[in-house]
């Protein structure tokens, strides 16, 4: 079976092909949504934002030069939209997010570990990373972006991408240690 490449779809979209837009949307909207959701932490906002992201794709398709993968280009647009939305967000919502980040001290580490397996604790720790660290971890592990692509999406040098990922992982280890899991690193 032959699959039309994203680049070809973008060329068709530049010519006003709505069907190509539907195909591109169907192919990428879930990943773009999840990327945005991890940044804005609000499902309704994330859903609103993806239509904005794909509208930008519709508008700018003619300017796409193929210097990066289409998915990388879309994640760059998504990131910009998400950060703009976060800047506009009322303080009340920000407070709610902050509340999510507050650690639950109801259980001591041993009890917490008994309740959850290591994998679940690791996922919880991933959720507790700062937005900056969460973003780079998601881009590398889930969105399978190279050092160069992450640098392009986030707008930082490649060396910074590597050190940011390194420190995100260190922070992850610290969070695990707080939950009674010592990985012996760093």
């Amino acid at each position: 079976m032959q699959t039309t490449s994203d680049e070809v779809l973008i060329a068709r979209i530049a010519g006003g092909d709505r069907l190509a837009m539907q195909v591109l949307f169907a192919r990428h909207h879930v990943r773009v949504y999840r990327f945005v959701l991890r940044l804005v932490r609000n499902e309704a906002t994330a859903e609103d934002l993806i239509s904005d992201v794909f509208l930008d794709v519709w508008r700018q398709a003619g300017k796409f030069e193929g210097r990066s993968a289409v998915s990388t280009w879309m994640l760059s647009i998504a990131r910009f939209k998400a950060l703009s939305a976060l800047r506009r967000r009322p303080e009340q919502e920000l407070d709610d997010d902050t509340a999510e980040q507050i650690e639950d001290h109801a259980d001591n580490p041993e009890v917490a570990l008994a309740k959850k397996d290591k994998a679940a604790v690791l996922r919880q720790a991933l959720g507790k990373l700062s937005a900056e660290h969460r973003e780079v971890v998601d881009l590398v592990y889930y969105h399978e972006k190279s050092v160069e692509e992450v640098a392009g999406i986030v707008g930082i040098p490649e060396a910074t991408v590597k050190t940011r990922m390194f420190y995100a992982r260190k922070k992850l280890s610290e969070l695990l240690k707080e939950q009674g899991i010592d990985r012996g690193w760093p």
Partner: protein
Amino acid sequence: MTMTNKEAHSDIEELLPWHAAGTLSRRDTQRVEEALARDPELARRYAMVREELGETILLNETLGAPSAHAMEKLFVKIDAEPARKPAASLNLGARIAEFFASLTPRTLAWSATAAAVAILLQAGLIASIVIREKSAEGYETASAPSTNPGVGAFTIIRFAPQASSDDITKFLQANKLQIAAGPMSGGLYRVRVAATELPKAELARIVKKLQEDKVVGFIATTE
């Protein structure tokens, strides 16, 4: 200047997440694999990276998906956009990519054959006219079929992907059709159904008849 062991180790260690995700260059992949083979501590840390990778994927996969309204919302916004000009702005590379992408491998295979068929048919038609003209001792009838590709009645046809070159040849011959141009974008061919212009109703009748043939995937009248 050479790197100290510690610096080199750190450099390799920073690459572990990308190695686990399979997004490193061949050169870096080799460097990391060599380091992993000789350093058990690094290999242990790589196992941690693989755990993180697996759980990050799982975490993201449990985030769900947007509602079905997401696409509706998008197209409401697109509908509100100003009408777009046809693809005149596409660069040559994009148009070439577009063209080849529109063809299935099988279509590509018979496109060449179809083009050859078109040339043969065209040659046959020219030859028959020449013979007829010769036999008419220099007298040319006013009704002689024109070989001018711009004159006549035309349709646009996309052949069914499963149609073989034999099927297409027989179809063209049986219906006295001539490929005037193509393949164009979307695998379409401009096909001449008559040497002279036809009334719209007559052309529509021919299109309807041709549409019933299994060789035809899509057909429409054209100027």
